[in-house]
């Protein structure tokens, strides 16, 4: 039981480290094989809301932040919101006003609405 509980604490940092090294070395734009491809994109030909995050990770690891954003503009909104959720849920769980904001249903419904809006808009304007 104790070992089972500690598995995520060891595995998650190791996985992040391995993925970081992998995306630093491999450029998803040029390496066509052995990189997970978006199944949605393969089947429908349209872009999904998360398309571009591998290229963005590669650019961020090489210090090109603006280029990373250009692959997926939704990261302007989603990554700060994710950090807020992480802060309110794991790091400062006693901060009730922050927790109330990030877990409020209007906040989350807005996020879901923007998620689908981004999904449509990026395919309309080909972003």
């Amino acid at each position, binding site marked *: 039981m104790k070992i089972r509980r500690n598995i995520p604490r060891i595995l998650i940092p190791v996985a992040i480290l391995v993925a970081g090294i992998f995306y630093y070395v491999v450029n998803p734009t040029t390496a066509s094989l052995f990189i997970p491809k978006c199944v949605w994109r393969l089947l429908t030909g349209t872009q999904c809301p998360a398309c571009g*995050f591998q290229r963005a990770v590669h650019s961020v690891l090489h210090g090109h932040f603006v280029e990373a954003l250009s692959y997926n503009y939704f990261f302007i909104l989603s990554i700060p919101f994710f950090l807020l959720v992480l802060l309110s849920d794991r790091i400062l769980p006693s901060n009730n006003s922050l927790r109330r904001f990030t877990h409020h249903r209007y906040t989350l419904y807005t996020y879901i609405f923007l998620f689908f809006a981004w999904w449509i808009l990026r395919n309309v304007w080909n972003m």
Partner: protein
Amino acid sequence: MPYDKNERDDVHRINPRPVGEQEQDSSQQNQSYQQQSYQEQNYQQQGYQQQNYQQQNDSYVAPPSSNLVWAILSTLFCCLPFGIVSIVYASKVESFWSIGQREAAYDASNKAKKWAIWAALSAVILWIVYIFIFIFLGVTASTIDNANIY
């Protein structure tokens, strides 16, 4: 259940005892605790009173983890919208907790966790399926060599 202990704290707070009397009245104290749990059973049989009872104890207990971190992460990295289902359940955790429906809050917490895991797993499974199709059908790299596909 995480709130059993806190209910006992509640009893002590309502009826504070001097230190000397605690050993003498231990049997009586046990009895009063049993009465408390018996009352609790009565409350659970009656719907609206159960809510009142739970609302009184809300300040003593932390709500269950909404697993919102995993829900947001799965929408960030996985193409499929299962993460959205997870976000919806995660938002229900807090609102159920605020009106005192604890079982529903725990249920929503577990469902949020389950859907976030399935969002991640389905992406992995689909990728494995894709690799198998890629190998068995012998699709060449040139036919899908589109840089925008990742």
